[in-house]
């Protein structure tokens, strides 16, 4: 079943800041600025917003929340008819557009905003598990010394290297190609070129991962407005159709690297195989039809594993595939993270990938893929739900 019954009609973002440097701005101010910018771009008053479709349990990182009533109070939104969030964490970012679609198709809302705001002043996400009070389940994980997401994913990465012979050079290529894409982007936090020597000279944080395998630690807010295809026709921007959206995943992945019980083949994966199958099935397409892939890049090896799960190469072939130059904007067969991704532009828990997908489908991206007609956007890999989104070229 191909959808296209809803479309993204507005995007907005604040500046991006290194970790903690958005202070003394508040989460509500950052979020409000992004919402207002997205409304302005779409050509609708903020008072037209009547739906909120969040992910990550409507958290704003850890320790802060995104609260619909607070936004209504400060932005003067008169009435809301839908307010919901996907569960778990960043895995739901792309899928939150599907949550917005659910509201729109059900007739429960007319203009739905999806949002993330992040300010890492009080707590770095990178060491979050060491800072949280223990609970009975995390007590089977945290005492091992795996104190943050990168440490957890280094264990999956080790297994991928063992099972398939994947080399650190592949992870380096993810980092280097992302940096190359960020070089000409005014808002990118990291723009200076990254070389292979730079990569291998970086300190090891959690072997096999080094500093350059970790995404940036940044602050900022991003908002996206989704509405019905019919309403979208009358707005300021060319509407970007939602071709397919899906969230969820298989029990074999489950809580993933917070669990570590995955069967061997799933262990060394991104957990996205089930999402890929549903997205492609709904859209009636395959990986060959995707023109640009915006893959959630909290850690470089997870890009390699998503390329496998989404069928851009065979299982276990992600390393050589990436090393061949296949994901480069210049000369690659499937340009990946043309915005520089979370590794080089900014980390706003997946939202920048949605922005780039919209710009690519409008034909207005800084690093525009010529003639691009379909963009893949992903969320996660993390504890379920993980998610994905296929956007189509603006009419």
């Amino acid at each position, binding site marked *: 079943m191909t959808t296209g019954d809803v479309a993204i009609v507005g995007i907005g973002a604040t500046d991006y800041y290194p970790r903690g440097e958005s202070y003394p701005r508040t989460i509500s101010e950052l979020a409000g600025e992004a919402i207002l910018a997205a409304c302005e771009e779409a050509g609708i008053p903020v008072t037209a917003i009547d739906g909120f479709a969040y992910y990550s349990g409507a958290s704003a990182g850890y320790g802060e929340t995104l609260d619909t009533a607070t936004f209504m109070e400060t932005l003067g939104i008169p009435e809301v008819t839908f307010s919901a969030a996907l569960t778990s964490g960043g895995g739901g970012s792309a899928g939150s557009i599907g949550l917005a679609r659910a509201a729109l198709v059900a007739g429960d809302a007319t203009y739905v905003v999806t949002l993330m705001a992040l300010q890492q002043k009080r707590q770095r996400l990178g060491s979050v598990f060491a800072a949280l009070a223990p609970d*009975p389940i995390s*007590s*089977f*994980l945290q005492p091992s010394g795996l104190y943050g997401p990168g*440490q957890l994913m*280094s264990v999956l990465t*080790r297994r991928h290297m063992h099972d398939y012979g994947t080399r650190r050079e592949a992870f380096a290529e993810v980092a280097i190609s992302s940096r190359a894409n960020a070089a000409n982007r005014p808002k990118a936090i990291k723009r200076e070129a990254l070389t292979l020597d730079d990569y291998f000279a970086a300190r090891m944080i959690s072997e096999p991962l080094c500093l350059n395998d970790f995404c940036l630690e940044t602050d900022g807010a991003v908002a996206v407005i989704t509405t019905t295809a019919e309403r979208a026709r009358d707005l300021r921007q060319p509407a970007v159709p939602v071709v397919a959206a899906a969230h969820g995943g298989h029990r074999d992945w489950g809580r993933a690297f917070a669990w570590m019980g995955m069967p061997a083949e799933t*262990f060394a994966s991104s957990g996205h195989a089930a999402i890929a199958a549903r997205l492609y099935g709904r859209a009636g397409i395959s990986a060959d039809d995707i023109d640009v892939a915006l893959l959630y890049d909290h850690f470089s090896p997870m890009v390699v594993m998503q390329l496998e799960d989404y069928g851009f190469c065979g299982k276990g072939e992600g390393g050589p595939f990436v090393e061949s130059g296949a994901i480069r904007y210049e000369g690659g067969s499937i340009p990946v993270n043309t915005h520089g991704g979370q590794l080089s532009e900014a980390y706003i828990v997946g939202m920048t990938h949605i922005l780039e997908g919209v710009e690519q489908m409008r034909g207005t991206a800084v690093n525009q893929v010529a003639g691009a007609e379909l963009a893949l956007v992903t969320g996660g890999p993390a504890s379920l739900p993980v998610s994905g989104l296929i956007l189509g070229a603006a009419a």
Partner: protein
Amino acid sequence: MTGALAVALPADAVHIAVNPVTEPFWEAARNGRLVAPRCSDCGTYRLPPTPFCPTCTSKRVTWEELSGSATVFSFAVVHGYPGIEDILLVPAVLDVEGAPGARLVSPLVDVDPAAVHIGMPVQVAFVPIADGWQLPVFRPADPPAGASR
């Protein structure tokens, strides 16, 4: 290559929480025993302990005492921990002998990280952590007599 050996986190840096479902694991560890919950109806092992058997949904559990032998399924070499800059940790995901399908995520200690490999046999030991509990940690297993590596 021989370098610094991996260690466990200091006892006062490791806090756990328990509930009625998980407490038998920690009570056994406090007494120097490694146990895992096995479904009393279908025999499926599970870790961490959860209320229901994922295979048959039974809530009946038998706590089986394990040999303490395990095999490294994967691992990380972690440089530093929040508040403990210079510490060298080797957290490992372990397949536990006698409890097929159940894994533990535990520190490897007293081992050169460069010598750790997937498939490495390890053996449990217990170290003190906060509040009077003990944590299972693992050391390289002695090779069986006459075995060659």
